[in-house]
């Protein structure tokens, strides 16, 4: 593996991170926040790490293979999570583990928080939280590819290692342009949503923060009780719709822009996604209507918002769903696992994988009846290659196994079964609020440092879709490459 190019790119990234920290730094300066120093030190730290890496790194041999791609992406996420944690830690807002937890939760767009009293934290710090969401949502490396140097053909490996979904669907042939296109859509959505929220009556500061958080399907709010603070159906409606949009495939939006809105109905994944939202809203709505004593419109409002929030893996809360009946909670946990569409900012297994798994199961049944039958799996009229199909089955198994294993580790800290299952389900699919101790109205603050470490691993694994991180532990990865 060419470590020099990895170091070089990580150095550049570190400098970019320093640049990002400047935004809340300036904000803290104008607002006279107490955490000015913390931001300044963090920025300097990021800059010095960046220069050290650049010094030892080397960009002469720009040949990025799969290995370097994976190394850059994994390294980038670890590095950025560390740098992003510095402001929380240095300002004394959180202890070290919690700061790392908060930073990973931000960048992976999980939205699980360890801060117990959010409203007491300085505004610039909360803005940094939302900004980490926004950067993590589109993908640190995708942002990097879009705005920073031209790193040649190898960028495809970095892109694939980070972007979610079973197949890589590029909207335009070249990776750099794809990244730029994705960023444009991303920025466009953010701006439109911020404007709408402002119109709906939020303050300028709140609307920027919530727009960042929504479009990244993150879930950090600037208030302790999340969207319950506003208690406004209009705001919930706007955020609900944008959460669903943020859970859609960004590549699909690009083709909608180019070819017209008919594209929506040619895309199986998007149709299934919308169907899931509708069915889940109806089921949860009926359940809470009968069991919780809400009025008809209120049940619809809360069920729609909560379903949109969970399936898009955002994690905003409009009503304490922890006290809802067990059936509704089951639906929500199920949605956590499913997640939204591939190529979006959401986490989870992804609708496209579930669709393919469902088709495979049907094919298996038919195959049992007609043993000599050859079954073809297609999606959107296109044949799905065998390697992708077998990869999906294995991904599903690995997802469930890691889920079970991490839950076991978390339960060993003394958490109850439901709490541990909820916490890992919510963080591995980057939702945020879970059930019980880490439920809708509480935070992850009470979890032990070991438990937080476990959850951090879950969040990173979930965001990078398991394989990118897990190949690092295979010895083959580190063995020197031979050229055949």
């Amino acid at each position, binding site marked *: 593996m060419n470590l020099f190019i990895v170091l070089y790119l990580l150095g550049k990234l570190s400098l970019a991170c320093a640049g990002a920290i400047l935004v809340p730094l300036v904000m803290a300066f104008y607002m006279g926040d107490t955490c000015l120093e913390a931001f300044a030190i963090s920025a300097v730290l990021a800059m010095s790490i960046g220069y050290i890496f650049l010094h030892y790194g080397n960009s002469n041999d720009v040949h990025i293979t799969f290995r370097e791609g994976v190394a850059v992406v994994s390294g980038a996420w670890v590095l950025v999570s560390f740098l992003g944690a510095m402001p929380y830690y240095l300002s004394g807002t959180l202890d070290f583990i919690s700061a790392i937890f908060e930073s990973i939760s931000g960048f992976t767009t999980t939205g699980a928080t360890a801060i117990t009293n959010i409203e007491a934290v300085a505004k610039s710090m909360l803005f940094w939280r939302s900004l980490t969401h926004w950067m993590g949502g589109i993908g640190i490396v995708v942002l990097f590819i879009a705005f920073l140097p031209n790193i040649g053909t190898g960028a495809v490996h970095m892109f694939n290692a980070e972007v979610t979904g079973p197949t890589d669907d590029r909207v335009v042939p070249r990776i750099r342009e794809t990244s730029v296109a994705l960023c444009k859509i991303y920025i466009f959505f953010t701006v439109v949503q911020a404007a709408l929220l402002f119109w709906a009556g939020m303050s300028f500061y709140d609307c920027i923060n919530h727009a960042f958080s929504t479009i990244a399907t993150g879930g950090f709010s600037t208030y302790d009780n999340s969207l319950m603070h506003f208690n406004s159906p209009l705001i919930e409606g706007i955020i609900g719709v944008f959460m669903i949009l943020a859970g859609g495939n960004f590549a699909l939006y690009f083709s909608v822009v180019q070819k017209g809105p008919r594209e929506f109905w040619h895309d199986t994944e998007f149709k299934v996604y919308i169907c899931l939202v509708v069915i889940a809203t109806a089921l949860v709505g009926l359940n809470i209507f009968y069991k919780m004593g809400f009025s008809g419109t209120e049940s619809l409002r809360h069920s729609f918002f909560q379903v949109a929030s969970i399936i898009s893996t955002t994690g905003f809360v409009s009503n304490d769903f922890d006290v809802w009946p067990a059936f509704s909670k089951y639906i929500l946990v*199920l949605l956590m696992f499913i997640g939204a569409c591939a190529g979006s900012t959401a986490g989870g297994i992804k609708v496209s994988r579930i669709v393919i798994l469902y088709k*495979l199961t049907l094919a298996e*049944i038919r195959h*049992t009846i007609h*043993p000599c039958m050859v079954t073809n799996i297609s999606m959107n009229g296109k044949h799905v290659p065998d390697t992708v*199909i077998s990869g999906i089955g294995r991904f599903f198994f690995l997802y469930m196994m890691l889920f079970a294993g991490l839950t076991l580790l978390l339960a060993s800290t003394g958490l109850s079964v*439901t709490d541990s299952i909820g916490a890992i389900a919510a963080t591995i699919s980057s939702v945020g609020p879970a059930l019980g101790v880490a439920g809708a109205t509480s935070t992850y603050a009470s979890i032990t440092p070991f438990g937080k470490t476990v959850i951090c691993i879950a969040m990173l694994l979930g965001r990078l879709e398991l394989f990118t991180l897990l190949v690092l532990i*295979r010895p083959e990865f580190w063995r020197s490459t031979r050229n055949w």
Partner: protein
Amino acid sequence: MNKRLVMYLWGEIIFIFTGYMLFPLLMTLFTNENRIAEFGIPVLISVVIGAVLTRGKNPYKGRLSIREGMLVISGAFIFVCIIGMLPFWLTGFTFIDALFESVSGFTTTGASVLGDLSLLPKELLLWRSLTQWLGGLGIIMVFITMVPQIGREALQLFTGELHGESAERLLPRITETIKLLFYFYSGFTFFITILLLLAGMNFFEAINHAMSIVSTGGFSIYNDGLGHFNSTTINLIVLVCMFVAGGNHVLYFKAYREGISHLFKDTEFRLYVALTVIFAIFIAINLFNNNFYSAGGSIFNAFFQTISIVSTAGFAMANYDAWPDFSKYCLFLLMFIGGCSGSTVGGIKMSRLVVLLKVTGAELKRTIHPRMVSNITMTERAIPPRLIDGITRFFFLYIAVFFFSASLLSLVGDLSMFSAAGIAAACLASVGAAFETVATIAGYGELTAGAKIVAMLTMFLGRLEIFTLLVLLHPDFWKTE
């Protein structure tokens, strides 16, 4: 589809089944003559149905097709469950309770809704244990004998000898295998009975528990299960026998014929031992740290419960529902895993887990070397890609059915999340005992009627390995060729 043949086979199975029903009938003759009707009527009904279905002569020509095989298995299962419920129904239990008990018995789950067992007549208790024993026997027979007709690849998981052989040469071997398995199953039951007798049980207790253990069912004839005896010797015997019952029966034969070393060369058996030990140690440490038992007590309790769950028997030695959450979660995970294939256990099973683990490892390697061709082997045999695909799809379906069943249970049964998850997992893997409301197997009596029906369907799906039943629901199945 050859309908005559399917019906004939149904009739045959019902006849065999009726034969076993004569045991409790005979028992009523000696003990309690005014209860003859409870068993006499079902025997008469099944004899009539059997006679109508077989109509005298065997129309068997050639081999069973896949569809016929599936229909025979599923149909026979339904017939047997319905006839098997009649003694309970005639005794005075509600229709749903009687059916539940019967389904729970034949699927070797061991969940009970009968309430206070001390009020029940002895022959009914014997029938309960017998349903499990018959269910277990049927499963072993079916999945070793019918499976080759349904998908020959699957059989390779059980017996390596059959690899690559033609169907004609396969048949005599299968008849031989069936006989051996029947002898082993019966002999093992007899052996456990003797052991339990020596440990201090009376004959009736010993035979009932032996049937329950060898079929990995879990019914006891006392309300407090094994706690009734309060004997370490008995618990130890049960522990060891459950573990043996959860292993591959075909493998035991191989080990018997070709040396004990075969046992430990088998990947599946090795994983079975390893996982059992690992989980038991986890639980033991957890119990000891939380001051539940002494060091020895923690280890014994942990091993007993781990083996009871992984072999999907579901016996309980202590009130494990009071254990710390970590231990309960370990047990919950074990429910999904289940024991070895080629036995009466439910769950995903070790052989599938081995393949899934290896395949996932290979996928990680393939991510690094995208053009790599990887072979998955188990006990030095290559697993064909078709089978691997089938296993990953089975895993997905298993998890999907679990989720579906658990959420439905929470809705119709008004249960908490964990309780519903426990019931769904326990019924799907034919364990029986779960957590909270159903921590003891008698807890199922407290469920609502709707929840009992869902639990029953879950047991049924789990026992027939999901696909067998779903295939019947597919329209292609009923289309004529």
